[in-house]
């Protein structure tokens, strides 16, 4: 890497912008703007800065529809929207996936469309923190805002999360390094533990690394719980960790004044999936008998939590909500995007502010090759290679304002700093247009009246 001189050539600074990358939603970013472009970003991490100073080569500017020969052709908005609306209106099992990188204002339009047509609405939680939400639904959710961590925490545990890589400012702004009200010396007042099979970059920053074996998470946390209950371990090594290390760790956790467990996809993606989180949550609850403990899932996209919150207050369910029968339904293994795709059920797929091409396993994406895919996004990505209609949206938090929810549930109104490219449209506008066009094409909303042929039996 070479030295990069500071940018001095800019027209104006827009202060206190919110980063649209990860669940940290850092809201202290300053954009340096020149000629309507962000030329530099202050305070952002490498990830945030790179996203805000996007690659214009691959920016989607004009709507496109896949032509006869399989090549995308630029078209006008009416044609693109009509084509997309037709696909949606004629579908029986539409899935609207994504939403995590757009605003809750856009989701409002989306849920109206979804309810009208009877679609499945799902977001990225389905492939990242879905198991966490399921564990929350089984075990509970002792959470706290990140400021609480900053002001009080003296023990921070990262489990299955590589914050240094995926949430680079998390440690610096919220958890480990900042000087909090009761932790005036910052890093020196805190103990940091990383639990990860790999000696990750976060582990390198920690006081302690617990390198339990791959897929051994459940057994490991169960052992901690047993020790918390006063049991002597029978095995010398549990999930790759020597028993004495477990005793020592438990002692430390019990003696913390305020501990926080941050967990990431390392727990949600391995063998026992939601049960890893389930037992980690229970462990945190047990620890509350000795001192104060809480946890926070390290949510990936900046508004992935927002969608879950939004769906919960709109429908009562957090993600994977199926409106097909005219009422809401949430059933694991049945109304989730990956399961639907693997079962080859959907016949129309709308992807908004997400990239299944980059994130879904082959087995799921294969079905996208067989059905119409409508993409609303800002960049040409792997999903564009599978898309039949491409609708260029705008960049929330830079070109367009909107609400998002931080990983701890704090809402933030992300402001607009520059204008979007002339030919792009706001996500909210695109979805509203789609909704109106679909409503014209399919006049009868899907109400699917309950069919009771034998009233006596009801």
């Amino acid at each position, binding site marked *: 890497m070479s030295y990069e001189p500071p940018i001095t050539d800019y027209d104006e600074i827009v202060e206190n912008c919110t980063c649209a990358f990860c669940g940290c939603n850092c809201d202290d970013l300053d954009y340096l703007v020149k000629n309507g472009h962000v030329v530099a970003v202050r305070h952002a991490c490498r990830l945030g800065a790179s996203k805000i100073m996007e690659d214009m080569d691959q920016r989607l500017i004009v709507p496109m529809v896949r032509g006869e020969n399989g090549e995308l052709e630029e078209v006008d908005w009416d044609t693109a929207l009509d084509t997309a609306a037709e696909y949606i209106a004629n579908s*029986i099992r539409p899935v609207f996936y994504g939403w995590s990188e757009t605003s809750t204002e856009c989701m409002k339009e989306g849920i109206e469309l979804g309810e009208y047509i009877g*679609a499945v609405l799902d977001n990225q939680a389905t492939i990242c923190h879905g198991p966490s939400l399921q564990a929350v639904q089984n075990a509970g959710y002792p959470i706290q805002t990140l400021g609480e961590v900053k002001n009080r925490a003296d023990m921070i545990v990262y489990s299955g999360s590589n914050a240094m890589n995926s949430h680079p400012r998390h440690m610096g702004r919220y958890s480990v390094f900042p000087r909090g009200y009761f932790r005036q010396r910052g890093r020196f007042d805190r103990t940091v533990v990383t639990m990860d099979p790999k000696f990750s970059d976060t582990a390198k920053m920690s006081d302690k690394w617990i390198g339990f074996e791959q897929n051994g998470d459940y057994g490991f946390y169960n052992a901690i*719980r047993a020790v918390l209950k006063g049991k002597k371990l029978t095995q010398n090594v549990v999930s790759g960790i020597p028993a004495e290390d477990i005793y020592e760790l438990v002692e430390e956790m019990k003696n913390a004044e305020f501990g926080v467990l941050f967990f990431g996809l390392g727990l949600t993606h391995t063998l026992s999936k939601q*049960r890893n989180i389930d037992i980690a949550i229970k462990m945190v609850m047990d620890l509350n008998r000795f001192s104060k403990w809480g946890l926070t899932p390290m949510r990936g996209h900046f508004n992935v939590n927002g969608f879950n919150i939004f769906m919960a207050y709109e429908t009562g369910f957090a993600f994977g909500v199926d409106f*097909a*029968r005219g009422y809401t339904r949430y059933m694991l*293994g049945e109304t989730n995007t990956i399961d639907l795709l693997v079962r080859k059920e959907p016949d129309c797929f709308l992807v908004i502010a997400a990239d299944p091409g980059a994130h879904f396993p082959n087995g799921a994406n294969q079905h996208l090759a067989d059905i119409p895919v409508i993409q609303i996004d800002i960049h040409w990505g792997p999903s564009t290679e599978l898309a039949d209609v491409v609708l260029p949206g705008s960049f929330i938090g830079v070109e367009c304002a909107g609400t998002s929810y931080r990983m701890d549930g704090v809402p933030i109104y992300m402001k607009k700093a520059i204008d979007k490219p002339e030919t792009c449209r706001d996500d909210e506008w695109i979805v509203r247009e789609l909704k109106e066009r679909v409503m014209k094409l399919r006049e009868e909303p899907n109400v699917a009246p309950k*069919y009771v*042929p034998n009233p006596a039996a009801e």
Partner: protein
Amino acid sequence: MKTITFDVIKRNQIALEMDEVIPDNIYSWEAEDFDKYAVPVGNSRFPITDFFDITVEGTADSPAEVKMIFNGDCGRVKYIGNKMSAGEIIVNGDADLHVGAEMSGGAITVHGNCEAHAGREMTGGTLEIFGNTKEFTGASYIGEWRGMRGGKITVHGNAGKQCGECLVGGHIHVKGDCDILAGIHMRKGLIEIDGNVNRWPGGQMKNGNIIIRGRLGRLLEGFVEEGIVTNPVVNGIEFEGTFIQYKGDIALKGKGHLYIDAEKNRDKLSAWEDEDDEYISLGDNRLR
């Protein structure tokens, strides 16, 4: 007695939802009633006769007198026998998700494989599956802490992960192997497994009993060995053989019991040797 036969004409890629076609609703239906009925598929409804050749024989005055027979591949027919309270359903072929979920009585027999959620939150009746099932057999629906409450599930093949999750009553008998975390969060009832078990049965269980006749891959630390028992009587049933008895999950002050066959798990009594248990039990239960 009324026998209604559903012969599969075509397998639809988008699953049919048969939650309305259960004995409780259709006992008085004649062939022409089926002709009028449209079955939910995705966000629409289609005539049920598009998918099944339906023949009705005999008459019935109550759901209990109904016998429904499905012939053919019902691998895309969801909710067979969902919430039924009486009658009999026989599936000669595979069945999709939610077979016999929330049923309170009657009998369902599946002669093929089942997808996940079989017998979830059932409160009574019997469910017999001759093939394999997938995850969450006899479990609770997400969020609920009270799973299957009564009745009996027999699986002749293998069961997937988290079989009998949150069980609060009833009897699950798996004649094949079980994947990880059988009987997790269980509070009452009995899970009987004749085959091998992958890992961690009874995680966070509060009460209830799990019997494993095959080999166990890995046991949780939350279980305390209580000794060796011969021919234990569990939930009123006598189990022949010698078993190692554990109590757990003590991480939760649990008082449940886990019995594993002493012969096949001899090593558990002496030194615990770590071994690669990844694929101990995984029979071919993941047929798509």
